[in-house]
C-alpha cells in the first residue's frame, strides 16, 4: 500500500472514522442501557444509536432565519477534527511506529475543537436559548481545561519529559502504569472528572440541559447536522477514555485488557452520571478552579518530587 492510501485508510477506516464511530455508538448504547438498568428499566436494543443516526439522515434540515453560514459548517469542523484526533491516538495505541514527536499536544488541541465547533455553530443559530447554552459551554471549557492540562503535565514529568504518546506508553510498559503511583493516581482522578465535563455527562451537562433550556446548544439543529453532532459525541466517547488509558493505564494494552479498561472508564463515567444532579454553571466553575485544580497542582508537586 502506498503512503497516501495508507493515510486515507487510517483516517477513514481503521483507527479513524468507521472504527471509532462504530465503537462510539455502541459505547453510547452501553451508556443508555446501564442508565436504564440502574433505573430498573429494560433499555433500548444495541443498535439503537445507529438507528437514531440513520433516522436523522432522513429528516428535513431546517436552517433558522438569521442563521449564518457557520451554522451548517461547524458540525463538519467538529467531526473532521475529532476523527483526526482519533486517528492520531489510534495510530499510537494500536499500530506501532506510527507515532510522531509532539502528538500528545496535537491530541490535546484536537480534543478541544468539538466544543469550539459547538460554540461556533450554536452562536450562529440566532436563538436565545442556544446562546445561553453557548455561554455555559464556554465557561465550562475554561473550567475543565486548566486542571486537565495540569494533570497531563504530571504525566509528562513522570515519563521523563517526553511528549510522544508511544514513548509515554513504552515508559509505562517498563515502569508500570502511571496510576499506581501517588501523583499518577491524583492526576487520574482529576482527568476522570475533566473527562466527565468533556463528554457533557450529567453533573456538567448544563450546556445541553434538556429539561431546562431545551437542548441548549443543539436546540436549532435538525436532520443531518444534528446527526453529525451525535456522531461527534459518539467519537468523543471513544477518544476521551482512550486518551486517559494512554496516559494513566498504559501497561497492558492487548485487545482484551484495552477493552476491559475502556469499559471500566465508561462505567465510572456512567455511574457518576446517574448518581449526581446537574450543577449550576458557577458551581461547576468553582469546582474545577477550586478543589480540582488544587488537587491537580498537588499531583504536579508530587510528580516533581518523584513520588
Amino acid at each position: 500500500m502506498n503512503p497516501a492510501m495508507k493515510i486515507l485508510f487510517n483516517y477513514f477506516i481503521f483507527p479513524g472514522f468507521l472504527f471509532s464511530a462504530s465503537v462510539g455508538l455502541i459505547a453510547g448504547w452501553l451508556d443508555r442501557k446501564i442508565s436504564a438498568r440502574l433505573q430498573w428499566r429494560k433499555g433500548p436494543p444495541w443498535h439503537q444509536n445507529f438507528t437514531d443516526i440513520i433516522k436523522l439522515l432522513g429528516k428535513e434540515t431546517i436552517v433558522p432565519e438569521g442563521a449564518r453560514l457557520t451554522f451548517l459548517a461547524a458540525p463538519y469542523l467538529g467531526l473532521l477534527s475529532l476523527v483526526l484526533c482519533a486517528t492520531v491516538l489510534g495510530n499510537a495505541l494500536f499500530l506501532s511506529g506510527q507515532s510522531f514527536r509532539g502528538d500528545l499536544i496535537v491530541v490535546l488541541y484536537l480534543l478541544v475543537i468539538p466544543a469550539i465547533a459547538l460554540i461556533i455553530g450554536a452562536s450562529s443559530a440566532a436563538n436565545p436559548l442556544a446562546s445561553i447554552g453557548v455561554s455555559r459551554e464556554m465557561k465550562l471549557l475554561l473550567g475543565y481545561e486548566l486542571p486537565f492540562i495540569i494533570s497531563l503535565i504530571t504525566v509528562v514529568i513522570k515519563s521523563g519529559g517526553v511528549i510522544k504518546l508511544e514513548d509515554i506508553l513504552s515508559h509505562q510498559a517498563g515502569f508500570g502504569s502511571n496510576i499506581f503511583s501517588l501523583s499518577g493516581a491524583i492526576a487520574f482522578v482529576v482527568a476522570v472528572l475533566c473527562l466527565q465535563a468533556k463528554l457533557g455527562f450529567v453533573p456538567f451537562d448544563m450546556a445541553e440541559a434538556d429539561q431546562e433550556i431545551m437542548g441548549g446548544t443543539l436546540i436549532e439543529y435538525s436532520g443531518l447536522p444534528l446527526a453529525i453532532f451525535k456522531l461527534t459525541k459518539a467519537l468523543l466517547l471513544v477518544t476521551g477514555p482512550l486518551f486517559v488509558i494512554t496516559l494513566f493505564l498504559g501497561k497492558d494494552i492487548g485487545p482484551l485488557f484495552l477493552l476491559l479498561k475502556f469499559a471500566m472508564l465508561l462505567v465510572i463515567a456512567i455511574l457518576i452520571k446517574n448518581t449526581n444532579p446537574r450543577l449550576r454553571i458557577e458551581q461547576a466553575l468553582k469546582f474545577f478552579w477550586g478543589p480540582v485544580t488544587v488537587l491537580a497542582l498537588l499531583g504536579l508537586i508530587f510528580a516533581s518530587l518523584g513520588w
Partner: protein
Amino acid sequence: MDFRLKALTKSIWIFHASVGSCNNCDIETLDCFTPRFDLERFGIQLIGSLRHADVLLITGAMNRKAVVRMKRLYEQAPKPCLVVACGTCACSQHMFKESYNVREPLDKILPVDLYIPGCPPKPEAIISGVIKLLNKVKRGK
C-alpha cells in the same frame, strides 16, 4: 420498505406539548417512560427541542391563545412529523365543547395522525396507540 422509514419507526422522538390540559394526560404520558412501561425499549424518547422531534404529542383542549402557538410549533418541526392527539380533550374537546375559550377542535387546525381517547388515557392505551401509529407509518403514509 424504505430503510429510512424503517429507522423512523424504530426511533421515535416525542415532543410533548400541553395546550390547556388539566395535566392528567401529561402525567399518564410521562408514566409511559417509567420502569413499568419503559417506552425507551422501542427507541421512543422524550426530547427537549422541537427541532429534534418526530412526533408532536398534544394534550388538552385547544384554547384560543394556544391555536397560534400550535400552528407555529407545527411549522417549526422538521418533516416528516406526525401529530398525536392524546386524551379526549385533544380528540374532541370533551366538556369544553360549548366553552367560550375553545373555538375549534384540534383536527380542524393540524393534520392529526392518531387519536388516543380517554380521560386520561391509560399508559397501555397510549402504547397501543403508538403501535397503531407505527403500523400506519409502515404501510406508507
